[in-house]
C-alpha cells in the first residue's frame, strides 16, 4: 500500500488495484455495499460477491425524523454504474 500513489495514473487504476479485494461502494439513494470486487467496466458497472448492503431509511415523524438502517446479504451482485457515487478499497 505504501507506494499506491505511484501506481495510480488514472482514477480507474484505483479500482483495478482493488480487483479481488473487499471494497466499500457508496450508491445513490442512501445505500452502501461492502463486498469483493470481481469485475468492472468503464461505466463503473460492477460484479461483486459476498456483499452486504446497508440501506439508510429516513422516516419523517412529528417529533423529528428517525433513521433506520436495514442490512441484507447477497452472494453475487451486478451493480449498474450510473448509481455509483464512490468506491474505496480496504472496506471495513
Amino acid at each position, binding site marked *: 500500500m505504501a507506494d*499506491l500513489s505511484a501506481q495510480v495514473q488514472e482514477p*480507474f487504476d484505483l479500482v483495478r488495484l482493488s480487483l479481488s479485494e473487499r471494497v466499500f461502494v457508496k450508491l445513490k439513494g442512501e445505500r452502501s455495499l461492502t463486498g469483493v470486487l470481481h469485475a468492472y467496466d468503464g461505466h463503473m458497472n460492477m460484479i461483486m460477491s459476498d456483499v452486504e448492503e446497508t440501506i439508510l431509511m429516513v422516516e419523517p415523524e412529528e417529533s423529528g425524523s428517525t433513521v433506520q438502517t436495514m442490512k441484507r446479504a447477497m452472494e453475487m451482485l451486478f451493480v449498474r454504474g450510473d448509481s455509483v457515487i464512490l468506491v474505496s478499497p480496504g472496506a471495513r
Partner: protein
Amino acid sequence: MSSEPPQDSSTGAVGTPADFLKGVIGKRVVVRLISGVDYQGLLSCLDGYMNIALEQTEEYVDGAVVNRYGDAFIRGNNVLYISAMESI
C-alpha cells in the same frame, strides 16, 4: 470544429478546464457532489469524465466529517465542482 473554445490571445489566458486539471494534481482539493456531500483530500488523478482518485479522503456531510477513506474513487457524474484548497 469552430466550437472549440479559442484561447484569449490578447491576455494569453491559460485558464481552460484542461489547464486547471493539469495544475491541480497533487494539490489538496474539495470535491463537492451534486447531493451536497463534500470530499476533501489529495487529488491523485482524474480523467475527462471527472472521475477522481483521492488520497487521505474525508467525507463531509453538513460540515462534519462522517467518514475517512485511505483512497477513494469518485464517479464523475456526481461531481458538481473540484475546488483547489491551495493556489495553483
